[in-house]
């Protein structure tokens, strides 16, 4: 099991949004996170990425194998497409950016500065970043925003290839990606006012 989450509770801005989340992710598997806006998909992914602490519960995950792609692509506008990818490749200790450029059809744009790209092209570059990380577990936050149908196809292919080679992907999305994947609906885990109060009491006891 690449990722195992049990009874996780997480908060956004100090307010609990999700409680009792439990799921597992095996290698070769893609899991889609669903749920209405504000349910806590981003919060869950940020908690898994270690950007914020969990309120309760356990996450069993090898952070050395984990790559996170946020809403924002983290691109530098005055660097070219290739320079942006190069930077992340060096940070993650990989060398070859050509397969990532090819997978998202960015070869013709590689010398173009990122601020000259369209929103969809920027997104493709942001997704190509995941390929150069060389990590096994991907966590993606709404990866298909501003992508056209063809690019969504490229993305679906990349995820399928990644899973086929033993990787795993956790994808928060609203749309149908066009491949078979398990779905985890977060709606039942929404934190209620009662559970929020329980955490509040727990916190006051812990700190006072």
């Amino acid at each position, binding site marked *: 099991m690449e990722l195992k989450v049990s009874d996780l509770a997480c908060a956004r801005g100090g307010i609990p949004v999700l409680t009792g989340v439990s799921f597992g992710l095996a290698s070769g598997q893609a899991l889609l996170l669903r749920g209405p806006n504000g349910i806590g998909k981003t919060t869950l992914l*940020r908690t898994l*990425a*270690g*950007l*914020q*602490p969990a309120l309760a519960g356990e996450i069993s995950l090898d952070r*050395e194998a*984990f*790559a*996170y*792609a*946020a*809403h*924002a*692509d*983290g*691109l*530098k*506008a*005055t*660097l070219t497409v290739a*320079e942006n990818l*190069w*930077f*992340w490749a*060096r*940070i*993650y*200790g990989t060398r070859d950016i050509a397969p990532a450029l090819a997978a998202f059809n960015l070869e013709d744009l590689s010398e173009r500065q990122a601020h000259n790209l369209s929103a969809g092209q920027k997104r493709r570059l942001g997704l190509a*970043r995941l390929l150069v990380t060389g990590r096994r577990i991907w966590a993606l936050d709404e990866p298909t925003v501003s992508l056209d149908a063809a690019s969504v196809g490229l993305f679906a292919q990349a995820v399928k290839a990644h899973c086929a080679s033993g990787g795993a992907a956790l994808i928060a999305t609203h749309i149908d990606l066009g491949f078979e994947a398990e779905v985890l609906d977060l709606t039942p885990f929404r934190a209620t006012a009662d559970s929020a109060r329980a955490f509040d009491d727990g916190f006051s006891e812990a700190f006072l």
Partner: protein
Amino acid sequence: MIALLLRDLRLAIRSGGGFGLGLAFFLILTVLVPFGVGPESQVLGRIAPGILWVGALLACLLSLDRIFALDYEDGSLDLLATAPLPLEGMTAVKALAHWLTTGLPLTLVAPLLGVLLSLPAPGYQWLLITLAVGTPALSFIGAFGAALTVGLKRGGLLLSLLVLPLYVPTLIFGAETLRRGIEGQATTTPLLLLAGITLGAIAILPFAAAAAIRINIR
């Protein structure tokens, strides 16, 4: 680490990177001072050490908020925080990149600007030495301030208020070493204290900055 340093240097010299902004500010400030206090070289020579040090300090301050704010806005700070790079190393590298693009050029042009302020002849080598020893502290203290204010809308002003008081010891010992050097007095004590502040800042503040960033990106 080296990749991050190269990226920051490259970003600084590309358009809109802010390289040269501090230098231009330093130049204008030192040109304005003789207009304000008059052209007598004796008066200018007396105040030159202080003016040059204050000018370098303010020029350094100008580009501090870019250290982390730009990375925060475009999301790369989140991604760097999840990357296999220790956050402490990241803050140290970014402070170093800031020094290489502001502190170092300021140090190198300061002797030229000293001419405009009739800096006495023995002052030039001491100006180079004190700025070279002192400006790294300005970048590392500034990076800590920038880490504290990252994520705040228009945090630049708050950053200045936080950081300027912390610059006082560096300013006192830097300008004092320079003054003593010009007057031919012993400079060892203030120079060692200046170097001590710089080394202390380099040793401790990257850790403090990393802790501040961890809290600010939650």
